[in-house]
């Protein structure tokens, strides 16, 4: 509940603050009127808030929540604190799809701005098929080591192809570089709906398997002994995580550190039980990314920093601080 309240407060703060600061009361009033379709007040505030800031902040919150949830799930599933949603390699596949779309100007008829997103999703899905197909072929039991190994190899392979594409990208290089550092600039309500749908569907599957994740986090062998259908549950969770990561990367680019660090921070506060850890990570991830985005767009105003750079800096410092405090407390 505390994490949920923090997420709502951060959301309002993020919407209020920007290149043009809008008072808190005005912000709440504009959003309230917007939600219920009431006539809006005079001035530029409604336009700034409803067409630019709110969809962006909502998208940021949903991406943060999704990345953090996936990180928490992967760290439990693989019993590896260094895992996150990108461990499987699907995010690299999605990135490759997006880079190809930007470099070659791929567009979807009738949806000129959706080319990058759709290509990233298609590549994410194909990557998932390739990775799981390879994992099955090499090791029918889908062992943790095989998954991590294939994920790392696939990521390296996808990165190599990406480098080749970038080499021949010419004047598109700047757009590609900015995208790979992660940005949620210019996101709209359509993006928000896609993110929300993915979070409800895939995130719901992940949350539903909190008990199984507890068993995996204790040990895969132990999970089997207490009655978890290890192979089936692992496959379901890998697909859910990959689906959610694919959607996030396709909309926000590569945003590092959120999925790795947020579940760690939350685990230090609420413990490793996934029934508490996953919902708390969900909200904490949203808060973390909204704050990072706030800094990214206000620190060097009117210039904007890539959000991935901010998440890495804040995440590293916050993690060291919380980890240090928790060790002192022992």
């Amino acid at each position, binding site marked *: 509940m505390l994490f949920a309240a923090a997420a709502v407060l951060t959301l309002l703060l993020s919407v209020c603050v920007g290149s043009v600061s809008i008072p808190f009361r005005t912000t709440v009033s504009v959003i309230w009127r917007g939600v219920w379709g009431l006539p809006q007040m005079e001035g530029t505030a409604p336009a700034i808030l409803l067409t630019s800031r709110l969809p962006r902040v909502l998208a940021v919150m949903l991406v943060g929540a999704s990345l953090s949830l996936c990180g928490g799930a992967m760290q439990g599933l693989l*019993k590896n604190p260094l895992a996150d949603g990108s461990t499987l390699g699907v995010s690299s596949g999605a990135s490759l799809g997006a880079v190809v779309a930007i470099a070659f100007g791929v567009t979807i008829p009738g949806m000129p701005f959706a080319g990058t997103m759709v290509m990233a999703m298609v590549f994410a899905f194909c990557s998932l098929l390739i990775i799981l197909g390879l994992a099955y072929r090499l090791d029918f039991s889908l062992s943790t080591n095989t998954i991590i190994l294939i994920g790392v190899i696939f990521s390296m392979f996808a990165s190599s192809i990406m480098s080749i594409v970038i080499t021949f990208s010419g004047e598109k290089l700047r757009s590609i570089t900015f995208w790979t550092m992660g940005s949620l600039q210019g996101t709209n309500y359509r993006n928000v709906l896609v993110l929300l749908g993915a979070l409800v569907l895939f995130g719901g599957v992940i*949350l539903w*398997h909190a*008990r199984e994740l507890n068993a995996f986090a204790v040990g895969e062998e132990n999970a*089997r*002994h*207490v*009655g978890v259908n290890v192979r089936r549950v692992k496959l379901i969770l890998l697909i859910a995580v990959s689906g959610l990561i694919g959607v996030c990367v396709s909309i926000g680019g590569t945003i590092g550190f959120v999925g790795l660090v947020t579940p760690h921070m939350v685990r230090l506060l609420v413990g490793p039980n996934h029934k508490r850890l996953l919902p708390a990570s969900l909200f904490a991830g949203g808060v973390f990314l909204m704050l990072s985005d706030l800094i990214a767009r206000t620190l060097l105003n009117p210039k904007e920093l890539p959000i991935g750079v901010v998440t890495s800096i804040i995440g590293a410092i916050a993690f060291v601080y919380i980890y240090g405090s928790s060790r002192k407390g022992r």
Partner: protein
Amino acid sequence: MLKVEQLTVSYGDRTILNNVSFELMTGEWLMIVGPNGAGKSTLINAITGSVAAKGRVFFEGKDVRTMKARELSRGVGVLSQSHYMGYAFTVEEVVRLGRYAYAPTIFSRHSGEEQAVRAALEKTGLYEQRRQSVLTLSGGELQRTFLAQTFAQDPKLLLLDEPTNHLDLVYQKQVFELIRDWLKQKDRAVISVVHDLSLARAYGTRAMLLDKGQVVVDGTMSKVFSDDVLNRVYHMDVRDWMTQMLAQWKET
């Protein structure tokens, strides 16, 4: 309770377990002994389906391969020899996982869950430590935690793979006494892999000697622990060695 028919496990050209067949009755504590590489742990893994095996295993008349994971774990509990814990779960959280097979979804809780978890914690002397992180436990306490989890699981058959391998004498005794008490309940049986022949003799009701993946002898303790059989399998005078060891204690 358990019927094993011609169980064979091979890794490539190497046969680890070769045509092992036996039956286990209620109330029995079958000790599986044998030298390193005899296939003892593989036998336990093959019974639960953790490794691919030829042959068939029936638990209470049902082929275990056709049983769902939850159904099997309600009947068969497994305790491994060691556990590596990465996250700071509490003792109670680990023990509660033993009830996983009884509650179908995350929102449902089996009516007997609280009672079973508490009984398992009390039986293993861990009730006072139930909120303690498993990362702070000693090896013996950790093994008792997982034994409590198995008790909470309430299986009819308990499979133990060298359960006291890394434990000192006090904990070895504690764990074996707890299992002996557990076996006194109705419709219970235990199979354990044990290296220590003294422990096997002291607690088992029946033994099976394996060597190179095959059953050498299966039967009463006196039949399996006969001098000629043990000497042949271990390539040494086992009785002489054991007697020498005990003599040290008598002298002091």
